[in-house]
């Protein structure tokens, strides 16, 4: 079976990028309000890449990251993954908890819970925009968190795509706070089949 994502037109890619842009913009605003800091955001990257290359986006399969993972339910099931380098996650927790920068060096259950809540809020903001755009009702699951190697965490998402093909469509945005160097990557990875639903909903299905 041919992989549908390898045959996307430029218009379709642009439309997806715009969705990513609005969704991530919403998320960045939410995050900015939450930690009371300015957030810079990159223009979303739409990449269609071999599954094995996805970990390179965040610094290679062995990079130490914290991942908050949510499933998206509704007519276009997808996965959302918010990945932060470990140090950024610590820094973010310090901001949220009103602690001095550098205080956190490991995550206790309270910190994990705070990061999951961030994932929740970011995903909610993102999906709101996406739902508005597509008129599809998209709901996030409760979040789950893991701190480990990027490759291992990405496995979870990529396995589902692996059932269908050898490439992933990744809509990815990088966030950074202005001064504190907190960085994060936000991934939306539609399940196989969901992409068509999304494209149809925004009227760019061929």
């Amino acid at each position: 079976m041919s992989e549908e994502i390898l045959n996307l037109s430029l218009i379709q890619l642009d439309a997806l990028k715009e969705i990513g842009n609005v969704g991530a913009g919403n998320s960045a605003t939410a995050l900015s309000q939450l930690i009371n800091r300015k957030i810079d955001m990159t223009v979303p990257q739409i990449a269609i890449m071999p599954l094995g290359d996805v970990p390179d986006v965040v610094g290679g399969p062995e990079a130490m990251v914290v991942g908050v993972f949510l499933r998206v339910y509704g007519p276009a099931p997808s996965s959302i993954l918010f990945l932060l380098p470990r140090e950024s996650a610590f820094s973010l927790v310090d901001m949220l908890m009103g602690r001095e920068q550098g205080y956190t060096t490991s995550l206790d259950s309270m910190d994990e819970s705070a990061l999951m809540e961030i994932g929740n809020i970011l995903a909610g903001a993102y999906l709101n925009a996406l739902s508005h755009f597509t008129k599809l009702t998209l709901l996030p699951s409760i979040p789950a968190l893991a701190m480990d190697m990027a490759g291992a965490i990405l496995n979870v998402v990529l396995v589902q795509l692996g059932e269908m093909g050898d490439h992933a469509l990744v809509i990815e945005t990088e966030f950074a706070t202005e001064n504190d160097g907190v960085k994060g990557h936000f991934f939306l990875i539609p399940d196989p089949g969901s992409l068509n639903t999304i494209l149809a909903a925004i009227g760019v299905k061929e």
Partner: protein
Amino acid sequence: MSELIKVGMADYKTGRFPSSLISYGLGSCVGIALYDGVTKIGGLSHIMLPDSTQARSADNPAKFANTALPIMLDEMIKMGALRSRITAKIAGGAQMFTFANATDIMRVGQRNAEAVRLLLKKMDIKIIADDTGGNYGRTVELKLDTGIYLVRTIDKGEKEL
């Protein structure tokens, strides 16, 4: 030349002493190391899914346990390894995220490990070390001089299998 040969996700590589084979950041994937201690020929397979017959696209045989292992074994035998001497060590198959209502896809690590065990038994290859399960990632390295299978983790240290 001593060389560290990288094995990506959904890929396999074979090699002989003095090279080593390494695969980074396995989560639910399983790393299967096959080794013939006399010729010092080995293979490392990094599979994502248990079974190609249940997948809708099976273009890449290295992605599935049932298709990757026979190919890798053949390649090792062509290089001069003796089938009856080849043993297996396996690692990986973790469940990285815990959800209250874990669906099948969430338990893919466990399914992968079970499928690999069953398959190796069918192929009549003895598993002499097994480090699967848990909720953490692993980097695995097969040292082709000794057949030692090195499993590296972030929080659980390093293990020689």
